[in-house]
């Protein structure tokens, strides 16, 4: 079982690396936000995997629960941000946005 969990964890980290490509490339901020949100959800799973591998799942499940509760605050903050600031442009064409 431990080998399977380890393999699954390594596969998850590998796929997270691929998701990170979207966070690096992503032409707009929102694309990055989507990628980071996916990575955050997968951290919950990896925390549980770490708990299984340590053989002390009851110690790790609280952290995962905290993550599950808090994970979506940043998305909501970003949504509030873009309600009032319409400044979504690909980074390579600065356009008319206030540059600082």
């Amino acid at each position, binding site marked *: 079982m431990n080998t399977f969990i380890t393999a699954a964890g390594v596969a*998850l980290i590998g796929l997270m690396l691929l998701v990170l490509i979207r966070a690096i490339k992503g032409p707009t901020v929102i694309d990055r936000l989507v990628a980071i949100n996916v990575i955050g959800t*997968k951290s919950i799973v990896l925390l*549980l995997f770490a708990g299984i591998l340590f053989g002390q799942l009851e110690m790790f499940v609280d952290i995962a629960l905290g993550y*599950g509760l808090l994970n*979506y605050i940043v*998305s909501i903050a*970003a949504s509030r941000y873009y*309600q009032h600031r319409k400044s979504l442009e690909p980074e390579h064409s600065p356009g008319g946005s206030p540059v600082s």
Partner: protein
Amino acid sequence: MGFLGYILISTGLVFFLGTTIGLLRFPDFYTRMHAAGKGDTLSTVMILLGCICLVSMSWLLALKILLIINFIFIGSPTATHAMMDAGNKAGATPWRKDSK
């Protein structure tokens, strides 16, 4: 029971692979959001259910993991909605067939 756990975790990984490919290959923000919002939630829920089946644990621990699933089921679609809202308000343009 353990067999079911292996199947659930593997299926979850396959769904996460789909999410990753969707995030990387889709042409614009809205379609990427489509891949990330659905595949991410489903794969996380499946892997967590797989953990419950795979590892022998007390009912309290299983309840906690079910609570995590519950919170992800509420939080993750809300985050998806908020990000979609943000993209819409910030003016992300949808992809068309004739756009390059």
